């Protein structure tokens, strides 16, 4: 089985004043199916640009990218648009819901775009909203929803076409701590359901949902580590409590 993401020498350089800006600089990364990976790094380290490259929202200036084994770095905009609709779910800091559509209409939109029947799209959307605890808000416009509810609707929208990959860019960046807690639980459930996830974040609690951490600096991945320490429950608890096991 092929990796969900395989990037080799992936780069995105912008012309700058004099020297080019190396937003993403020769990144090699492989993400396997079912992996939950977080990306951390200082502001401007290139983590959001990396997410945009992996989701086809920006094109690399060099390097290769394979999605589910298929070479995609040279795809046209329309081919990427088709691929994204089915294969990639996005969750953004600012939610990016369509203001004129109700919650359920926002969620079902990507399903309708890939040709699902209205009936099935609605049924799926309602099921997802229910699973994410916002079914009672289905008929509301986004501006009638709290930030946490909007993000849950956005997550439902990201999931409706059962994407290969979910990319989240600062998913809790606009949320208070209570709403963040709810989103953390949802992300943990997705991870446990083996949804392949890439979480770009400043928030240590979001990063800690993942099992693997990529640290970026100046456009490069400087560290790629596993977060599960291989400790037994007892040993982990003793470490947390600060007592001798």
């Amino acid at each position, binding site marked *: 089985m092929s990796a969900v993401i395989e990037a080799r020498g992936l780069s995105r350089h912008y012309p700058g004043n004099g020297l080019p800006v190396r937003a993403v600089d020769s990144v090699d990364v492989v993400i396997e199916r079912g992996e939950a990976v977080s990306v951390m790094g*200082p502001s401007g380290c290139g983590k959001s640009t990396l997410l945009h490259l992996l989701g086809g929202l920006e094109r690399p200036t060099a390097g290769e990218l394979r999605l589910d084994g298929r070479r995609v770095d040279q795809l046209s905009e329309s081919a990427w648009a088709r691929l994204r609709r089915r294969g990639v779910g996005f969750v953004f800091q600012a939610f990016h819901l369509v203001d004129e559509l109700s919650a359920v209409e926002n969620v079902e939109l990507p399903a309708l775009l890939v040709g699902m029947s209205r009936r099935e799209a609605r049924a799926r959307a309602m099921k997802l909203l229910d699973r994410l605890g916002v079914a009672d808000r289905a008929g509301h416009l986004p501006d009638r929803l709290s930030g946490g509810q909007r993000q849950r609707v956005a997550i439902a929208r990201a999931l409706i076409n059962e994407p290969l990959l979910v990319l989240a860019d600062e998913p809790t960046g606009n949320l208070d701590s209570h709403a963040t807690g709810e989103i*953390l*639980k949802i992300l*943990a459930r997705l991870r446990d359901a083996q949804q392949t996830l890439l979480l770009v974040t400043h*928030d*240590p*609690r979001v*990063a*800690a*949902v*993942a*099992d693997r*951490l990529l*640290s970026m600096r100046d456009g490069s991945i*400087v*560290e790629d*580590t596993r*977060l*599960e*320490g291989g*400790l037994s*429950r*007892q040993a*982990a*608890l*003793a*470490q*947390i*409590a600060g*007592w*001798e*096991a």
Partner: protein
Amino acid sequence: MREAMLALLAKEPAHGYELRQRLTRALGPIGEVLNPGQVYVTLSRLERAGLVRADQVAQTAAPDKKVYEVTPAGREHVATWLLDASWPKVAPVEFHLKLVAAAATGLADPVALIDAQRRELLRRLRDVQRLADDESVDADGVLLLEGTALRLQADVRWLEACERRWTGWRS
């Protein structure tokens, strides 16, 4: 731990095992690693300090057991403890000095130390969050884990500030 045990005994007398169970319940998952020996050692220290009194209770089917009860001095001690607002170890002094020492001696790269520390704290944060996700943990146990997670989160945030300070410190 000493004062917490005393406070639990102030509610009603208990023998060592009961007391341990009350503590474990209050602590949630973290109580699982409470060392049973520590409870008994602490009880005998409290007894020696005159803060609890032990009564030997004869049992027919089992060895005699000691039931502990708070003395008036112990009760006063608990009251003082409950009202004491001191909050130990607020400043992350040791790690801060480690970075200063690493830079001063050149024996280690401060940024490498920050990276290693961040990994370690995120590992713990991951463990804490997984424990808190467990539906079977009761509210008190979750609350303690929540506090642990928030402190770890704050520590990782502080490491970001450390990184900004120590990146390129040579120049």
